[in-house]
């Protein structure tokens, strides 16, 4: 196992080392696939641009953009994460054992982001295929302009959930303070129950049932500009 202490070494060296492992794996070389990052102490951009099936445990809380643009990496953050954790993630997984700040999973295209605590505002903003499971609550404007993927919230959602949403699916178990423009409550059909069951299983959530959730998504009424709906914007 590779071990990297951010109090002893630089962030640049850490990310370069992780990128090298991905390069080695692509050419069939021998790579360290298990890594431990010590003393992150709120550092920004920890383990960004990972491109390969590395297992990375970050022992402590991180700053902005941890795991940004992750491809295939399995990143575990033992602590809380600052803004933009897992931004534009492509694949793989990120698990935050604490809370996540704003923009968690922003623009993510794939993979699974699990937040065991709460997520702040704009969780899943502009998502493009990522799956996000939040054990606690999410803040206002979550899933703003979300294009595709799934956001699962076991707790409550703040104001303007799913504002200007496209085709992402939202599942909330608790209360929704308000829905954003063009976001509506939708029927939970069997296919959605199966999908939600799979998402909960992947997130290792075993103490709740899909039937306890409500589904939300796009009313698709703002897909073409209509002057008589201008007050919705």
């Amino acid at each position, binding site marked *: 196992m590779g071990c990297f202490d951010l109090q002893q070494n630089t*962030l*640049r060296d850490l*990310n*370069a080392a992780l*990128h090298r492992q991905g390069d080695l794996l692509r050419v069939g070389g021998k790579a360290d696939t298990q890594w431990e990052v010590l003393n992150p102490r709120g550092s*920004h*951009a920890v383990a*960004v*641009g990972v*491109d390969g099936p590395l297992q990375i445990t970050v022992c402590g809380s991180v*700053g*902005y*953009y941890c795991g*940004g*643009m992750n*491809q295939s990496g399995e990143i575990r953050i033992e602590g809380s994460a600052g*803004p*933009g954790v897992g*931004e*534009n993630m*492509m694949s793989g997984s990120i698990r935050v054992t604490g809370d996540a700040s704003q*923009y968690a999973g*922003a*623009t993510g*295209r794939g993979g699974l982001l699990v937040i065991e605590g709460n997520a702040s505002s*704009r969780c899943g*903003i*502009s998502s*493009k*295929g990522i799956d996000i499971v939040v054990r606690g609550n999410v803040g206002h404007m979550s899933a*703003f*302009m979300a*294009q*595709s993927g799934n956001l699962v919230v076991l707790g409550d959602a703040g104001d303007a959930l799913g504002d200007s949403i*496209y*085709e992402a699916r939202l599942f909330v178990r608790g209360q929704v303070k308000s829905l954003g423009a063009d976001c509506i409550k939708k029927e939970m059909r069997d296919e959605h129950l199966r999908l939600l069951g799979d998402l909960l299983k992947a997130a290792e959530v075993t103490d709740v049932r899909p039937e306890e959730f409500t589904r939300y998504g796009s009313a698709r009424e703002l*897909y*073409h*500009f209509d*002057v*008589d709906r201008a007050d919705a914007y």
Partner: protein
Amino acid sequence: MSYTNPTTTPRKSSKFDDYTLSEIRRAAETGLYDIRGAGAKRKVPSLDDLLFLGASMSRYPLEGYREKCGTGVVLGDRFAKKPLELKIPITIAGMSFGSLSGNAKEALGRGATLTGTSTTTGDGGMTPEERGHSQLLVYQYLPSRYGMNPDDLRKADAIEIVVGQGAKPGGGGMLLGQKISSRVAEMRNLPEGIDQRSACRHPDWTGPDDLAIKIVELREITDWQKPIYIKVGGARPYYDTALAVKAGADVVVLDGMEGGTAATQEVFIEHVGQPTLACIRPAVDALQELGMHRKVQLVLSGGIRNGADVAKALALGADAVSIGSAALVAIGDNDPKWEAEYNAIGSTAGAYDDWHEGNDPAGISTQDPERAARLDPVAAGRRLANYLKVMTLEAQTIARACGKSHVHNLEPEDLVALSVEAAAMARVPLAGTDWIPGRSQA
């Protein structure tokens, strides 16, 4: 005997001119604001209002066909391991696949490559054709993040974080349903055929302090190899430039209000932002005050059309310029040979700006396969290369006449202004005087 009041010649209002009247009628009929492409069409103080002085008793010119006048420029050597080395100080601005056809994007890449300069992606991501035909490709990092992925980020030669655009500082992009083809929809992860409105704000940072951290993230992802540009619209050029430098930019791209767009509201294009001429000196002030002039390069765009514009921009302190609308004209946009077709869609060659509708007879701002096939990317790329070479030769001609062995040696002292407004904005004397409005006594 009856009296007849003599009639006067009918007089139209200068305020309610024909265009204004037609726009009022159009708005009343549709209930929609007017959307169009291209840049500001109103007359504003511009680089045309400046003149070079040329050589004289105290300034020695260089021989046009004997003495060298350099044109090369390096962009992004502040932090990046691999800065861009351009042979000419003219780059191709960001324009998206989606707003432009695949053939048009290929032509831009070919033309830029033939002349040793860079081209730029746009809102919608990087296409393989564009990467394949562009020796130097700048990858735009936009609020929408359409098509954004780390593989393309690593394939790029530089990264341009787009904060704003001269045609619409503070506004996002628009791509209406008729141009959301299946390929465009797939690249943008959107349903086919819907009206797509790109975000105007980045989704995961707010303000220059956050931006500094975002830049670190992008540098870390790309192992500090790629230059990072920040593109701003011509809104508050002094502060935007200073904050871009503070945030860690290698290059600042400053786009004045004459800069084009694929589509936005007419009211935005004509009424928001400052003229390109008014933007340059405040930006250069910011760089000079920070001791970063020529260390963080300034790329100016917004209505650059010829070598004189290039030379004037460089003389006022820019390191390079960027062209968009002019490049499209070079490859065939608004060509009179399509006049009958322009007429058929209610326009005329030279005025066609409904780029968002996807009906471009020239095959440039369209996703319609039949129209797009009209543009030969090889021939169009050659035309662009010719045009870029002419612009460069023109800039060199002026620089030599001013006694400069490199176009970057041009300076404000080589210029005078033809109007009080231009003199004040460019901070050069009004022609025939030594008066710089706001700087010296008349």
